């Protein structure tokens, strides 16, 4: 029987009737929306504030040293007076660059823009005693202004006391200065460092624009998302960012890692950079790890600590630029590891697009907020058998985690073949204590005692 297009279209239109049956949206949706927005904003600010602290650490030392060195009596070249920075921020000294560098009226307009965020910043989200920099308009200089693939961008520098600070503004291509908006929280900068921005035309865009503002002659490369071949070999490549007069602009297509690994080289030496990311290049669900539940074919999720799974899955997928749909992260084993210390472990696996298998282990002590957890990555395994058909055994935190397609017992053996410990398997998963550094092999036995599989034990801390 062939269904006509007309009939299919009619059936699809009928779905509207199905949707019409649903109860109305919750009455307090506007309130909950605002609450969620504010909560997300606080988290973003907290992350930005962490970057701010790092910048302060960099800036603090040069300022202190310059104070000691000030004054001609020490025989040093006089530093600029109060009207100019006490340190010598090279970017600050350069003329504006970018396609709008010669448009003085536009530059004047963007320099006059406020550095105060449109939304009030929760002071509790900033480190104690830290205020957002807000340089006097007279000290501000435009380091970069121009149109890039994501839109129009301006980088404005200014002196906040003795410290160099910067703010990024963005707008649509061709925007007037008053159409430009503060793109990130203003931040302190540091002498000699480059400044970078990741932007996108919209949060839904699959292409990011990276802007690097450095000194003429600087070169830059970025790491490409690692590729894992079917053999299990990993290619970690770097590609150059085209630089012109110290300005780099590059488009980066998905997939991309959450943290862009940049290397900026000045006269043969690595220099640091301070990176920002605009809201439109970071939709809310990218700011924190998205809640990706692992596949749980063995029904083990009740033995796991849920946030541990979400955090580690996000880390792994981001590192390799994979989606959950591509990698299918799967919970392979979970349970207590040590007899006395109360440590638990979780073993996860996933499949690379090449068919190679990746995995990681996380171990932790439940209920101990002071105890650290650790995440350890397995070396990628060559493509071949599907993930759940493999025997994977890992020794970690004085315990053993085993994933096996069949069998009821996993025995850990030393080089002589002596059994060091035996761990029961339930639905293909097992865990138990194993504190012997001599364990090298795991052997899987079925209910009749027959050996059905054998595999090496991956061990951390060798």
């Amino acid at each position, binding site marked *: *029987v*062939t*269904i006509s*297009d007309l009939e*299919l*279209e009619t*059936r*699809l*239109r*009928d*779905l*509207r*009737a*199905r*949707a*019409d*049956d*649903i*109860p*109305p*949206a*919750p009455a307090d*949706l*506007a309130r*909950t*929306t*605002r609450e*969620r*927005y504010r909560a*997300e904003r606080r988290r973003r600010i907290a992350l930005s504030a962490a970057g701010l602290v790092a910048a302060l650490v960099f800036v603090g030392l040069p300022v202190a040293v310059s104070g000691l060195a000030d004054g001609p009596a020490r025989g040093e070249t006089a530093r600029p007076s109060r009207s100019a920075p006490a340190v010598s921020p090279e970017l600050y000294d350069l003329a504006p660059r970018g396609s709008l560098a010669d448009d003085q009226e536009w530059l004047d307009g963007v320099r006059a823009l406020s550095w105060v965020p*449109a939304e009030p910043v929760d002071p509790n989200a900033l480190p104690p005693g830290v205020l957002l920099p807000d340089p006097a308009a007279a000290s501000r200089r435009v380091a970069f202004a121009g149109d890039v693939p994501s839109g129009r961008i301006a980088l404005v520098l200014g002196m906040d006391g003795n410290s160099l600070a910067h703010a990024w503004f963005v707008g649509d291509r061709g925007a007037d200065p008053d159409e430009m908006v503060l793109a990130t929280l203003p931040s302190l900068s540091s002498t000699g460092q480059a400044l970078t921005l990741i932007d996108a035309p919209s*949060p*839904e865009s699959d292409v990011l624009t990276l802007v690097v503002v450095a000194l003429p002659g600087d070169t830059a490369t970025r790491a490409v998302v690692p590729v894992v071949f079917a053999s299990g070999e990993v290619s970690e490549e770097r590609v150059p960012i085209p630089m012109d007069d110290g300005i780099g602009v590059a488009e980066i297509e998905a997939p991309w890692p959450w943290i862009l690994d940049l290397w900026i080289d000045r006269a043969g030496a690595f220099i640091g950079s301070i990176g920002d990311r605009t*809201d439109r290049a970071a*939709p*809310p*669900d990218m700011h924190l790890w*998205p809640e*990706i*539940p*692992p*596949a749980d074919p063995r029904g083990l999720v009740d033995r796991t600590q849920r946030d541990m799974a979400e955090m580690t899955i996000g880390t792994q997928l981001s590192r390799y630029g994979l*989606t*959950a*749909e591509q990698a*299918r*992260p799967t919970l392979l084993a979970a349970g207590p590891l040590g007899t006395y210390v109360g440590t638990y472990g979780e073993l996860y696996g996933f499949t690379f697009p090449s068919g190679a298998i990746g995995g990681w282990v996380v171990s932790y002590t439940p209920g101990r907020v002071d105890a650290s957890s650790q995440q350890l990555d397995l070396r990628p395994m060559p493509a071949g058998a599907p993930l759940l058909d493999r025997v994977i055994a890992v020794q970690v935190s004085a315990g053993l985690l085993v994933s096996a397609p069949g069998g009821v017992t996993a025995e850990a053996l030393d080089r002589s073949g002596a059994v060091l410990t035996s761990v029961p398997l339930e639905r293909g998963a097992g865990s138990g204590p194993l504190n012997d550094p001599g364990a090298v092999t795991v052997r899987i036995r079925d209910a009749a005692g027959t050996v059905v599989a054998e595999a090496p034990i991956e061990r951390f801390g060798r």
Partner: protein
Amino acid sequence: VGGRDRAAAEAAFEAFVAARSTDLLRTAVLLTRDRGHAEDLLQTTLVKAYRKWHRIDSADPYPYVRRILVTTAAGWRRLRATQEIVSLPAHDLSAPDSTDAVAERERVADALATLPPRMRAVLVLRYSEDLSEAATAEALGCSIATVKTQTTRGLARLRVLLGASSPAVVLEEC
């Protein structure tokens, strides 16, 4: 943004949510196949819209917000494990009905849920929402030609899933 402008924007947002959130929720249900996921999708959409509210055309924010909804739904699919998509719980009708018409609608909804997200969005917007090809392209940020292609392929795929025999290739182009 001054205090008065902010108050006006807040009031406009409240009014929009009160007037249109149920319409958006219906579209979300069609896109996600599930009331719970649909509410999550709507909430996420409204947060995104709220962030940009002062930049949205205040005369009629609905098309813009709907665009956020459908593009977010497509992104969600990329973030969810496959088995979660195929094992979505059945739609929770407030008044269960065992008539053939309802059962057939469930079959169509099941089949629709297996399509790639953008293809599904094209069919939902074109037929369930009754948008033109141009309006569908606008909502999804793709060309009219892509809407036509995805419509043809989507219908072909549904034809296979609902019992006919011609093969279909599922591709996404938006």
